[in-house]
């Protein structure tokens, strides 16, 4: 059986949490990963996927970027047997809404429980407790780890309790109760309350935390908390099990019907070019140089009391670090390969974006030190980080799974260990 072909949306509007999915899938040995921006979704590059992941971020910005065509393509993808996994913002996206541009994504009949006409008073972290939703407010009663419990619709014989962090994701009420696979059970010692306990309980407890909504041959998995967060192994396993379960069935059905493209090293060799020797060494050195330069500035930025409100999301320098570390920690493995596999033009895209990020980070440090407005630079930096990380992961997964460097063997070994 081939690995499921998984597309991870990393385009405009997403925050860094899609990187957690990358970690999760790589650890599980799923290395046929595709990284998508809004243009690829609009061009229906998702049609051959088994799974589409839309993670956290700014739901309105994601919806705006994907647009009506992106929405149509996602719906069609699921109807034809695809599995949509939406976490946090990605969970809000397909819910019924009259708000523009979310009204282009009315795919599932699920209501948000953390929606209010009045803004409940936030006790701490006001900026992260609430976001306007038309004339209403989506409010976030708690952050950090919450306790979840599976329902009888997930497993009629036993209930499993586990925890996962909530960073603005929804509580959910499904039209059909059988769609609810897990509910919010309660809170943990690590839960941070942004409102009163009473409001938090009323909003979340016993409401849906993980919901599976079928749509023709496919389904939507909506995750309120970030089950993909790397520190929550049991929650991670929930996602992996879901992917295995759904794509095992889906591929058996659909492979024969639609002849979806399964991954093979030969395909990669056909589509992409091989780079080796001095050219490969120079590319990797260039990546190392700029990632290092960027990490060094970012380390310094983390000492500064600064945040940026981009769209409806609050960003801190630590989020820059998450992007950079996700690439940095994979660099050494990449450097061990004698042959790199990459699309034409990817090398230039990586080196240009990486160099530009260093320049912009140094610029923003000087702006902050000089008490100047740094918001525009922050927007540029996060855009560039998206471009760089998508490009880097294209290079990384193509190279590591090419079979040319014995990397596939290592990945498969990791996968077996994970299972």
């Amino acid at each position, binding site marked *: 059986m081939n690995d499921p072909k998984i597309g991870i949306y990393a385009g405009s509007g997403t925050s860094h949490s899609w990187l957690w999915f990358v970690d999760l899938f790589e650890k599980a040995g799923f290395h046929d990963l595709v990284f998508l921006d809004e243009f690829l979704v609009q061009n229906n590059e998702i049609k051959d996927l088994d799974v589409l992941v839309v993670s956290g971020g700014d739901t309105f910005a994601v919806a705006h970027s994907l647009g009506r065509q992106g929405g149509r393509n996602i719906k069609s993808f699921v109807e034809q047997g695809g599995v949509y996994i939406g976490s946090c913002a990605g969970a809000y996206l397909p819910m019924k809404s009259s708000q523009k541009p979310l009204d282009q994504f009315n795919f599932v009949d699920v209501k948000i429980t953390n929606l209010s006409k009045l803004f409940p008073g936030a006790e701490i972290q006001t900026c992260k407790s609430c976001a306007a939703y038309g004339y209403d407010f989506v409010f976030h009663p708690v952050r950090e780890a919450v306790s979840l419990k599976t329902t009888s619709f997930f497993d009629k014989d036993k209930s499993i309790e586990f925890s996962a962090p909530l960073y603005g994701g929804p509580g959910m009420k499904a039209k059909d109760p059988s769609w609810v696979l897990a509910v919010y059970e309660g809170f943990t010692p690590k839960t941070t309350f942004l409102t009163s306990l009473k409001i938090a309980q009323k909003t979340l407890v016993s409401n849906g935390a993980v919901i599976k909504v079928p749509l023709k041959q496919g389904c939507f998995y909506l995750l309120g908390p970030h089950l993909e967060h790397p520190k929550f192994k049991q929650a991670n396993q929930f996602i992996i099990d879901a992917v295995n379960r759904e794509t095992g069935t889906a591929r058996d059905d659909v492979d024969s019907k639609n002849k979806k493209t399964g991954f093979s090293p030969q395909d990669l060799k056909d589509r992409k070019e091989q780079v080796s020797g001095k050219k490969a060494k120079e590319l990797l050195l260039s990546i*190392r140089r700029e990632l290092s330069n960027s*990490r*060094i500035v970012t380390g*310094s930025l983390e000492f500064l009391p600064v945040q940026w409100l981009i769209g409806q999301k609050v960003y801190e320098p630590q989020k820059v670090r998450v992007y950079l570390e996700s690439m940095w920690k994979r660099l050494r493995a990449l450097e061990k390969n004698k042959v790199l596999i990459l699309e034409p033009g990817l090398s230039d895209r990586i080196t240009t974006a990486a160099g530009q990020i260093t320049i912009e980070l*140094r610029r923003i*440090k000087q702006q902050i030190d000089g008490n100047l407005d740094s918001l525009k630079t922050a927007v540029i930096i996060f855009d560039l980080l998206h471009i760089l990380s998508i490009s880097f992961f294209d290079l990384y997964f193509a190279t590591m799974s090419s079979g040319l460097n014995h990397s596939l063997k290592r990945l498969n070994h990791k996968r077996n260990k994970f299972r």
Partner: protein
Amino acid sequence: MEYLSTDKILVIDLNAAQVEEEELLESLVEEKIGGIGIAKYLYEKYENDDPIVIGTGLLTGTTYPASAAGGITAKSPVTGSVCHCPVIYKLGVEIKYSGFDYIVVKGRSDSPVYLWIHDGVADISDASDVWGKDVWESTDELRKFVGDDLLQTMLIGPAGENGSDYAQVCYNHWSSPDRFGFGKLFGAKNLKGLAFRGMGLIEVAEPEDYVERSLEILKQVKENSFLEKKGLGQILTALGEEGVSDWIDPVTHRHSADYFTPYASNTALFLDEDPGLLEESKKEEPGVLVSDIYALLGFKNVGLSVKDAGHALKACAKYGIDPFAVAQLSGKTTLEEIKDSFDSINGEITIPGSGLFTPWCPTGPIFNDFNLSGKDEIMAWWERRQAVSMIFGIQPMFSLMCPELTEENMLELASLGTDLELTQEILDAVIDDILG
């Protein structure tokens, strides 16, 4: 070399503007251990290219007490022979964590450059923006450019650029133990200096045992009563210079220690700020950090007030000139005269013993007597102790204070850390090679 090492030697050819990396072979560590043992080997390997070798000790940057030091090995314009200058503060550690155990700089650049060493990357960068500027301005500019206030630098000032025999390589903003005129060598190579930053990790062969033994040794070290003292005034008092501590007290702001070093041997003097200030000063240049006990004493002895002595030390650090040589050789007795004398410093200072090590370090034990007696025995002990400190990367001033840091336990930790069998016989041979 897998453990206690970055596994890499960097060779920079300034003539060709090329950077090459060599693997640090385990066999070389088995033969030369590390620090100046290997730096001397590299110096001799590239001798025809007039090299400067910057290196770290085998234990540098670990949990072994006072494992703070690196070293510069080169041919001194002052002595005319190969000498070893310790790298102190947090800089020695940063060199190793920036991704290289040893850096060989050979040849001469056509135009001014600095070397930006970070996370295993070495860039030869244009220094035209900082050439001609003093050490403080250059350090600040590089930190601003790189965007990191923790950037560690090894730079020269106008003294090195102008070819003064007593030009010093300064560390960050401060004077260094360089009594050898290594700043002149940098200037002759059109090399403004090096900037280091690294977020690397060092692997240890037996990490749990290594940490456990380090902490046991640290516990023994902390039983020394001298650790109740702080600062360079107390060191001078222990060496018989009774009046210095009281003299600097009115301007003493704080004392600071090098990386993981139990004694705070550096003293910050506030010259233009209230020394009792408990928050970060808002003044751009509140004072100066002093590690050079003999330079401070020298300025006292020519009759300067403590504030003027501090200002003289600060001026030397900015200009990149050895403050001890200035105090000894300028013949001047006022601050302004001293500042004006930097370009005309001439004459000789005494480098003790075989001339390999810097008299920035007192030439005998501090706070403890190490059961030594007689001038010759003390000098032989001092030279061996300096060699051992710079092989393993131990802060050389602290090694003169602390009998618990023994050759035996340094070897033990080096073996635990590397999984190599490093014996007293090997160490003796390395020391013989260094001391000639």
